[in-house]
């Protein structure tokens, strides 16, 4: 290994700018400048030998040096900030409002935001956070975290481990906080040592040279928190695995039992009841707010039973459902069973399940029923044979009726939210049908000559719950990453590494001090440590705005 031998006898690794043992400046960059003016030492990472500052030949060196630079890291952060901000200008695709006239992103952005919206959409900014380049930016930050940390933590650890209590005179005198005292008595030295110990400094002595140090562990804080961040980024990658992460959505109507998607047909769910409660407007605490804002919901809840299909393993076998849990799912109170978590994520109120009709004579003012029938909207029949020889054919069925742009009846969805029908009514013994069009609040006979009329007599409705089905084994990794990050960041920010050197010179001492943050704090420590001694208070040798 190439290295530099310091006059104190310590062999330093190549690239060290200060001797690891005695702190004597080794590199030109740490020497006094041409004017002979005393410069402060660059104490970053204790002048240790960082790879990035030493080698710059091969491509690996260059990549390493690029990512180990704090400047590059900050630039990556700045770019991420700008990109993130751009993504929040317009709603991302998943946040296109539900009540937008057209939720197709190709239409929505131009429709609502004009030409800028169109450009936004065409650049793919409506899915910015999942774009390859945004993910790449985050990945580069991750790479920078790893390389920059390794580049610093290893040499810093070595340098702090190697340091001797006895330092080179120029090391002390070129610290930011420094004082020189001509005459210091033994008693005063004992006093200052006692004070420092009381302030929980750890003291090391070599031939009268004293190093008082505390909170060295705080120097590792940044590296600990970077490890936490890297765990979080790795956990995000784990999400791409099907085993660790599964995300499904299911609509269950009241009274229905359906298979839970993503469970390999092993689990079923039954929706007993969906409950939507609102705040009482007579509650005097809230009446004013309710008067202003309108109805305010209080609870979204689905009462469910989860079943397990015990015949599941047998191929083709009929499902044999055994209830395993009966519970309520509320917003903020998801239901957990086995590895699965069910969240109350959406609802649809008042879907029609069935509609009942009667046939009566058009002229009959009493509208006396000649025949009755009921259409099951979940599975309507094609033909209904009725009493008294009537026959009704279901010509057309629109579950969610509306008139499209050309004025032609159509269905918006497959869910019976606004059902409408075209019915062919065959009177007893007749082969010619009378045509009726029926819907909520609509009863149209195209010819106006129908002998018989059909009317809605009754209907049944139910609610539907939208539930998210989720398996997420990556959460513990995110949790661990976040916890480690917090430990690291607190370790680094709430404690400060402080070192005070006392260097005998003649009858007196030189006193120098260094900290990585909170200079005010270390000055106060020194002030209290020298209290009652002849030792001079340190001066801050740093010029304003270094």
């Amino acid at each position, binding site marked *: 290994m190439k290295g530099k031998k310091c006059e104190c006898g310590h062999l330093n690794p190549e690239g060290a700018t200060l001797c690891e043992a005695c702190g004597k400046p080794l590199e030109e960059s740490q020497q006094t400048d041409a004017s002979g003016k005393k410069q402060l030492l660059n104490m970053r990472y204790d002048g240790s030998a960082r790879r990035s500052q030493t080698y710059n030949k091969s491509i690996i060196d260059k990549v390493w040096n690029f990512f180990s630079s704090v400047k590059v890291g900050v630039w990556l*952060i700045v770019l991420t900030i700008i990109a993130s901000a751009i993504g929040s200008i317009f709603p991302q695709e998943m946040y296109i409002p539900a009540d937008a006239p057209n939720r197709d992103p190709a239409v929505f952005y131009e429709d609502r935001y004009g030409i800028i919206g169109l450009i936004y959409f065409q650049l793919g900014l409506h899915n910015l956070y999942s774009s390859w380049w945004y993910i790449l930016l985050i990945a580069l930050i991750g790479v920078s975290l790893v390389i920059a940390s390794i580049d610093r933590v290893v040499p810093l650890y070595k340098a702090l481990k190697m340091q001797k209590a006895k330092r080179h005179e120029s090391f002390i005198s070129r610290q930011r906080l420094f004082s020189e005292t001509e005459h210091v008595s033994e008693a005063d030295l004992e006093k200052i040592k006692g004070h420092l110990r009381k302030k929980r400094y750890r003291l090391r002595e070599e031939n009268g040279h004293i190093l008082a140090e505390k909170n060295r562990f705080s120097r590792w804080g940044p590296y600990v928190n970077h490890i936490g961040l890297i765990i979080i980024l790795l956990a995000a990658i784990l999400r791409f695995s099907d085993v660790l992460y599964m995300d499904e959505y299911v609509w269950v109507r009241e009274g229905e039992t359906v298979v839970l998607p993503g469970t390999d047909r092993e689990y079923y769910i039954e929706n007993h009841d969906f409950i939507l409660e609102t705040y009482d407007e007579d509650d005097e605490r809230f009446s004013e707010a309710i008067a202003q804002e309108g109805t305010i919901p209080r609870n979204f809840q689905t009462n469910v039973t989860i079943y397990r299909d015990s015949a599941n393993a047998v191929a083709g076998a009929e499902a044999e459902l055994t209830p395993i849990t009966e519970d309520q799912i509320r917003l903020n109170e998801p239901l957990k069973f086995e590895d699965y978590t069910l*969240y109350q994520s959406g609802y649809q109120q008042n879907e029609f399940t069935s509609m009942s009709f009667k046939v009566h004579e058009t002229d009959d003012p009493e509208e006396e029923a000649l025949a009755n029938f009921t259409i099951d909207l979940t599975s309507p029949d094609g033909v209904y044979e009725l009493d008294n020889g009537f026959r009704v054919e279901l010509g057309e069925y629109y579950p969610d009726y509306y008139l499209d742009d050309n004025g032609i009846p159509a269905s918006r969805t497959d869910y019976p939210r606004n059902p409408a029908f075209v019915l062919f009514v065959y009177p007893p013994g007749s082969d010619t049908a009378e045509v009726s069009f029926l819907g909520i609040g609509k009863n149209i006979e195209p010819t106006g000559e129908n002998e018989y009329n059909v009317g809605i007599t009754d209907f049944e409705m139910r609610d539907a719950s939208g539930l998210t089905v989720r398996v997420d084994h990556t959460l513990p990794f995110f949790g661990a990453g976040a916890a480690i990050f917090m430990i690291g960041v607190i370790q680094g920010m709430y404690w400060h590494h402080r070192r005070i050197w006392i260097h005998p010179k003649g009858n007196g001492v030189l006193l120098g001090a260094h900290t990585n943050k909170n200079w005010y704090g270390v000055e106060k420590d020194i002030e209290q440590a020298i209290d009652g001694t002849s030792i001079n208070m340190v001066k801050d040798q740093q010029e304003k*705005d270094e």
Partner: protein
Amino acid sequence: MSLVSISGSLLYTAFILYLIATFFFGATIRDKRTDDKKGRSGKIAIGLTIIGFVAQIGYFITRWIASGHAPVSNLFEFMTFLGMCMVLAFIIIYFIYGLGVLGLFALPIAMVIIAYASMFPTEISPLVPSLQSHWLYIHVTTVSLGQGILAISFVAGLIYLISEIDQTTGSKRTAWLETVIYTIFLFIGFIVITSVFNFMDYQATFEYTEQNATTTTTEYNLPAIAAPNEGTLLTEGVMQPWFEAPAWMQGADAGRKFNTVIWSVLAGSVIYGLVRLVLRKRIGAAIQPLLKNVNPKLVDEINYRSVAIGFPVFTLGGLIFAAIWAQIAWDRFWGWDPKEVWALITWFFYAAYLHLRLSRGWHGEKSAWLAVIGFGIIMFNLIVVNLVLAGLHSYA
């Protein structure tokens, strides 16, 4: 007297006490001592601040009892709480550094925030299902404590800039500093103009059609300069709007909010202009002589220290607790909702700040500018994101 009105009076008391305390902190700057904690006016000032803070805690507790939930659930409650956290952060930093001039700036800014908050609806509203969780208290209180501490770094940055920027000639730096001060005046403008018209009980109702073709009405409490896009004025005998908000301004009450912004800018500019007329120099230049005893290195360190203390708190509340709650309520801990994005931006920004402090040349003035920008991002997230980019967090 009802609990709600007791609560309101306590908040008012706190506000007045902060105001008086500000004057006493002002008195400390003539004191040459480095530690203002020992001076008489310093002692009175911090005493009043603490009593004010206790009164505000009283407001918080009584309102909590009255409503049955922690009062951090709408913009008024949240901003008021932020003001309180800022005062708490100031008290802590004051006991570490004993710098009175910090109070001279921190308290007025906290007061502007509290007054600004009071301009929004103050009725107690019940919690919608997504907010019914203990995480509401845990998340929101930690976030605003973090933001309150970070706000102190802004205060320190502002003091640094006012005291250190050369005001003998106009420059880019003086112009930017004036812009920052002017922005504070816009908030004051908003508060003044809203209070005036609230006092007059001004109301004008507009009817307009939203993009999804439903027709709604919106209530203006300031005379309409800008009407909602394609809106018609229903109220008679009030000022006719001068023009309509442009069509791309969509969303709930976009026209009304736009109108409020116009009024705030007008009122803020008038007040700023009057102050300039009286002072006959840049406001920064007028304050500078007051700060001649300020030790810039100490102020710079307070700037840094506040970020160092506030950053972990903000991370915990704004990202970690937020993610835990989002996982419970919305089945995903992160969803790129605008509020989440801007919390991430805030976090990234202060992370960049902390890394830049490692480099030479980023202490002092540059750090001060960064602290100002950081606070700008926080306020952007609170105000613009809530009122303009509103996503899932639009209630808060």
